């Protein structure tokens, strides 16, 4: 397959799709499948046949539309009519009215314009619009043209330069400049070089990477081939959690299709470039998402981080130079190449460009998968996109950055979404989880809960994380069962500082964030628990032993 072939596939596919007047996109992502998305898909296929409109209406299985709380979601084009909570029973009504008579069924429509208004969909531009199981769908939206541009007219240095000029920073949490990482691996002299795409998204309440893989697996693959060309790697691994069956299936299909038409393998697009891709399955350890632990796991060993330096850019997989990149960062690469780094800079902030996908969950009216430009404030995300707190309850805190993120109060909701601003208020970008808590949550208990998660997931290698977190949790158990003492707070602070500074990897270095932020913003709750033995939210002191959970 060469460039002409790709263009031909795109034209044929576009023509094929133009033949249909309507297109019904049924979200079959892991948010909608439990609500019966596959049954709805089948019902649409049957109904379209029943009404004899299969020639003007295409029913497609797609990835996530973003409105995960009102699944199964169905998007009808043209016009982007979004139906919510569709059941197989009301499918016939929708087809009859919308497709046959041309009148959208208002009562089933998702009416919440603000949810999408402040979002900017770059990485998720195809999510919910294309069928992830068909490579033609991806190619028809301009897919693999960036790869062709790289291989046919750009030099590897040129590709890296484009990524550097885009200002893209790693979306895995730490925010290391992507272009700089690529050039570090490109400069390393050893061969072979490897790429590892990180899809080990293990945080509770986070599903952004998973949904991306389910909705648009080819974007990840294209990003990896481009990165491979730029850094001189011919082998890539996608490290994915085995708990993500739909995403695994989507990626497996996508890899097979790409291999079939020679977008993976030898002589890609008729050039000298080789690239091969394999999936590696995680066994359920959160720590395996850490940069060096993921390498151990890909090599088939116990997922334990190792100290850096040496950095993976020089000594990674089997001691060879390795590029480890979150899948969201990789999925950014194709359209940066296609439109240029300068174009990408028009999104987000000058020093923090582009967009970020977040899983918005917790006590909020519109939970779901969102993609927002950098620089948007937390308030806008929670109130404009998320629609505020349900049931007339009051906002209490928002946890940004997963289990090792920070619990932020109302007073810092004007904080912008970018790596540095979040850090200054005590949170992290992390893997992109935003969990909203209302007044029914006790902040001491919340900190205890997330500490518990990090203890469970600590690999046990280094003393601060293994032993330190366990002792910290015991202090929490005391506070939440009424045995707290005033000096507990000092010990918590001292131990947290030690764990952050002395731990080996990112897990330990960020695990005390919920503790420190709750102590910073909600100290009075700790005092209330310790001195008055009272829990305002009524969460603690309910059990004789153990407290809380």
């Amino acid at each position, binding site marked *: 397959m060469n460039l002409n072939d790709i263009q031909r596939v795109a034209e044929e596919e576009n023509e094929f799709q133009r033949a249909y007047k309507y297109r019904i996109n049924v979200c079959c992502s892991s948010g909608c499948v439990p609500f019966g998305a596959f049954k709805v898909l089948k019902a649409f296929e049957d109904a379209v046949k029943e009404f004899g409109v299969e020639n003007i209406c295409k029913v497609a299985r797609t990835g996530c539309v973003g409105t995960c709380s009102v699944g199964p979601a169905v998007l009808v084009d043209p016009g982007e009519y979004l139906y919510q909570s569709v059941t197989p029973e009301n499918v016939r009504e929708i087809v009859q009215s919308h497709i046959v008579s041309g009148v959208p069924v208002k009562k089933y429509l998702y009416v919440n314009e603000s949810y999408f208004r402040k979002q900017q969909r770059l990485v998720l531009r195809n999510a919910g619009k294309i069928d992830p199981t068909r490579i033609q769908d991806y190619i028809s939206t301009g897919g693999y043209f960036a790869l062709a541009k790289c291989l046919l007219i750009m030099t590897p240095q040129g590709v890296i330069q484009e990524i550097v000029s885009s200002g893209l920073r790693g979306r895995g949490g730490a925010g290391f400049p992507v272009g700089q990482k690529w050039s570090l691996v490109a400069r390393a002299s050893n061969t072979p070089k490897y790429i590892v795409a990180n899809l080990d998204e293990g945080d509770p309440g986070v599903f952004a990477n998973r949904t991306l893989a389910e909705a648009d697996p080819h974007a990840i693959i294209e990003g990896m081939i481009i990165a491979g060309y730029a850094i001189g790697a011919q082998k890539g691994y996608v490290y994915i959690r085995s708990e993500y069956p739909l995403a695994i299936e989507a990626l497996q299909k996508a890899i097979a299709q790409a291999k079939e038409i020679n977008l993976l393998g030898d002589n890609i697009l008729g050039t000298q470039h080789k690239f091969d891709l394999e999936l590696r399955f995680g066994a359920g*350890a959160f*720590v395996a998402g850490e940069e060096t632990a993921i390498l151990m796991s890909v090599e088939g060993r*116990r997922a334990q981080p*190792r*100290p850096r*330096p040496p950095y993976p850019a020089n000594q990674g997989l089997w001691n060879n130079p390795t590029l480890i990149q979150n899948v969201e960062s990789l999925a950014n690469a194709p359209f940066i190449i296609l439109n240029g780094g300068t174009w990408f800079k028009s999104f987000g902030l000058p020093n923090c460009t582009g967009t970020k996908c977040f899983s918005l969950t917790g006590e909020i009216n519109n939970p779901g998968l969102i993609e927002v430009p950098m620089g948007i404030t937390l308030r806008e995300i929670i109130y404009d996109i998320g629609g505020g707190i349900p049931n007339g309850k009051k906002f209490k805190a928002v946890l940004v950055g997963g289990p090792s993120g920070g619990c932020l109060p109302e007073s810092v909701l004007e904080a912008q979404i970018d790596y540095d601003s979040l850090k200054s208020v005590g949170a992290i970008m992390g893997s992109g989880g935003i969990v909203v808590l209302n007044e029914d949550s006790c902040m001491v208990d919340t900190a205890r809960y997330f500490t518990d998660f990090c*203890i*469970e*997931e*600590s*690999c*046990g*290698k*280094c*003393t*601060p994380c*293994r*032993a*330190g977190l*366990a*002792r910290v949790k*015991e202090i929490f158990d005391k506070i939440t069962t009424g045995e707290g003492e005033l000096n507990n707070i000092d*010990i918590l602070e*001292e*131990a947290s500082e*030690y764990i952050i*500074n*002395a*731990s*080996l990897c990112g897990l330990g270095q960020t695990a005390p964030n919920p503790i420190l932020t709750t102590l910073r913003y909600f100290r009075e709750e700790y005092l209330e628990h310790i001195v008055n033995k009272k829990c305002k939210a009524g969460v603690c002191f309910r059990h004789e032993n153990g407290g809380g959970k």
Partner: protein
Amino acid sequence: MTEISVVSLKIDGVQVSVPEGTTILKAAKDNGILIPTLCDLEGLTPYGGCRLCLVEVTGSPKLFTACTTQVNPGMEVTTNSVRLKNYRKMAVQLLMSERVHMCAVCVANDHCELQALANQLGVDHVSFERHFTRETIDSSHDFLVIDRNRCILCTRCIRVCDKIEGVHTLDLKQRSKDTEVIMDLDESWGDSCSCTGCRKCAKVCPVGAIYIEGESATQTKHRDVAEFITERRKRK
């Protein structure tokens, strides 16, 4: 002869020169500055787990483990700031509180590196609640015994078994505070088909977790064994 390039750096204000590729730990030791360690052992692959050898490097907000970090030209290393001393005390206290470390009834009493460190660092109390775990004691082997309650998970035994003896009988199972040293696929030591009974695990164990039945720690402990064998192999 190939030329070895020399790196100059400052450790605790003292200008030192060491061959390229030396770790901070070795560079300090060769110049008379002792950095406390537990998991590190010469002759074995550095591990970086105990976090006792953390040092400050001027210009970096992060701390580095001296055992795994190689020297860079012009580096300025601090090994004994107040903060580092506190962190080391904290690490020893945490290790002491984690499992059963009752020196008076321990086979390694007076020959224990954790005990010696506690003395050296002035750890006179443990400010966390101590845990008296009930991990299994495996004495099924003819003469080797493992008491997991005394284990500090330094993995010296695992590394010596893998790298020096070359059989990899020992490894870890589980994670977090439940991490345990196991034999083969979690079999009892007596049933292990790969263990050669070489005793090196007992020789290098810094505490009293692995010991030899009926033998005093004075007889057993021989922490230089890994370095000795590694050096001998180089001569071949």
